[in-house]
């Protein structure tokens, strides 16, 4: 595998790949700093994106929604 084969999209999807495909890529990464950096950066980007999941809805909104669900008439 070379840099061209290891396309940008494949780098971005590295974390989702099956272990056998990953192994083939890992071979390439041992000798290619550029692709290795791109994959490390992608993994870091995904980790930080996951942190955005710590936010949630306002408590008042949730209570209001719960009350509506329990009381609403079926239409």
């Amino acid at each position, binding site marked *: 595998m070379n840099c061209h084969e290891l396309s940008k999209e494949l780098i971005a*999807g590295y974390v989702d790949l099956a272990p056998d495909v990953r192994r083939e890529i890992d071979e390439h990464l041992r000798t290619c700093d550029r692709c290795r*950096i791109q994959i490390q950066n992608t993994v870091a980007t995904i980790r930080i994106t996951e942190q*955005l999941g710590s936010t949630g809805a306002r408590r008042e909104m949730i209570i209001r929604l719960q009350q509506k669900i329990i009381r609403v008439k079926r239409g």
Partner: protein
Amino acid sequence: MEEAELEASLLEKAQAGDREAFWELAAPSVDPIYRLARRLMKTEEDAEDVVQESFLKALDKIGEFQGKSRFNTWLHRIAVNQGLMKMRKRRSDVFSLDAPIKGENGDGKAMDPIDFSESALDELQSREAAGVLETALEDLPIDLRTIVVMRDINRLSNDEVAQALELPLGAVKWRLHRARSILRDRLGEYFAERIGT
């Protein structure tokens, strides 16, 4: 009781008209659906409307839910549709989830990428990077944004995202990879500037 078993039991009760059971089934999805709606809609008010309308729609249609996907996945699907409907009413940011994707620049073709992976995961810098990412997310085309929120923020699987959006799995993966690349390159620009100053 296993999670799937509990969900099936609550679903059965909810479909028989038990509102408490419906809420118990739906409540864990409020935060994820809010996170999705907040990134689809331009205002907090519209986002909260989409959340409320999505759950009321789910309550109304619960009899039609056949349990072929997880309930949470089904709610994501409803929320995307409710969001789209509201946008169309506002006649703004109208889009299609299977619209062709425009190519983007910033391919990193000319310059060697800088390695920001360690800096980005440092606690303080990670908070700043999260702010940069939030802005970058806003700038993403809405079809890519929807997929990133579902997959990387709300932690649905690729299969679940495909089910929720009724897109082929390959299309979901391709868009996800595209979106992650754009976000990564935006973070790269941010860290390159920091290092340069």
